[in-house]
């Protein structure tokens, strides 16, 4: 189209001015429309897209690698760390007691030995009790089996009601009956963690 137009213009120029003006009057141009068709979505080169994805992947992989590298290092638990002031003031906080005499040390060593014997005897007694209980149970089961195989099979079945088990252990002093516990002050002690 543009070529044709160009030739036409050439021809007109050669024909002379008067004729050219006449032709120009016959030309109509459409007014400018202030609108344009919707922009087409940019078509990205698939290779570029791929590259970008690759880059993203690599970045994440790198992060993972970095995390894995540090996985062995444990995060510090603040509650478990010895407070710095204790380390700093250790000298000041140490008790200055007179060192123990040899008699005292001897007495302690003796007591420890006695204790070891005592605990040993206690343990042996415990084992004996357990043995006795198991023996009694085995005897009962054997007798039951002799009476009836069916009852025996019912007896050795697992009792699912026993789990989960809840035991309230013996305490130093029994609970006070009808004791209304006073409302204390609540101090919120848990740490607040901020995300950096």
């Amino acid at each position, binding site marked *: 189209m543009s070529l044709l137009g160009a030739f036409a213009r050439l021809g007109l120029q050669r024909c002379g001015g008067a004729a050219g003006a006449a032709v120009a009057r016959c030309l109509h141009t459409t007014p400018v429309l202030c609108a344009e068709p919707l922009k087409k979505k940019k078509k990205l080169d698939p290779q570029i897209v791929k590259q970008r994805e690759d880059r993203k992947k690599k970045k994440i992989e790198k992060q993972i690698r970095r995390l894995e590298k540090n996985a062995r290092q444990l995060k510090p638990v603040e509650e478990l760390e010895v407070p710095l002031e204790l380390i700093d003031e250790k000298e000041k906080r140490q008790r200055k007691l007179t060192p123990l005499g040899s008699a005292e040390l001897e007495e302690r060593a003796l*007591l420890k030995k006695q204790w070891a014997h005592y605990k040993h005897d206690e343990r042996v007694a415990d084992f004996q009790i357990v043995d006795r209980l198991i023996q*009694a149970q085995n005897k*009962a089961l054997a007798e*039951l089996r002799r009476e009836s195989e069916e009852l025996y099979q*019912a*007896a050795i079945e697992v009792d699912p009601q*026993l789990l989960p088990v809840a035991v309230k252990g013996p305490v130093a002093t*029994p609970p006070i009956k009808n004791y209304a516990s006073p409302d204390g002050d609540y101090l919120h002690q848990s740490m607040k963690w901020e995300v950096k």
Partner: protein
Amino acid sequence: MLRRFVQVGARELRRTQSTAAAPEKWDLYAGVLVERLPVVSKSLNPLEKQFQDMLWRVEYENSLKSDHELKHEREIVQAELIKKGKVQVDLEDSGAKQTAQDLKDAYVEELKKFQLGSRTTPDDQANKTSSTDRCLEQTLYLLVQQKLGQQQHLLLPQGKRQEGETMRQTAERVLREHCGQELHVLFYGNAPVGFHKYKYPANQRTESTGAKVFFYRASLRSGQVAAEKQQPKFEWLPKEALNGKLSNAAYAESVNKFLL
């Protein structure tokens, strides 16, 4: 030779006799050992007490001084300086300040006001054996008065198995019959923990020779033996007292085998 022959013959004879009497029928009974577990810990014996004291001393020796102790020491030094007149007393400040000693006194006072629960109960003093609120340090076992033959005996609750029941079901039913619905217990498994067998008196061995009792262990969770069932006596007893109450030596021996 001849003597030996006679011996063998006699043995044969005995064996045939025993096989003839072999299909003995025994009644199956379930018994329940209900225990009230200790509520408070055992009091320490002299050696344990001594050892605990030593551990506490060692603990004290190895410990570092607390902030409170440091503050107390600082205040003592300060007070001495003031006494000597080396430091000016800040009147406004000293009046309002609570010293470490003051705080300590206040704490001690507060602790004194608090009454810990007693390790012995009124039922201990009254020796009320029907109560579970006594002998808190020990395990208590339930004995129920039952009629065996003509006589009344204090025994672990027991009863005969009915057709179609497992021994565990019998044990649960027996306990309910003896103690009512209010007694909540936890049975330790389906297996019996102990066994006892006794023969009926000779004149009563019509159907079966005797009884085989299978004992189940259960621990008391809550509740009490039903009040209207109190007519037959029941008692909660620690181990030593329990042995005193069991009149039959063979029964006591069988029971003792599975007591803790």
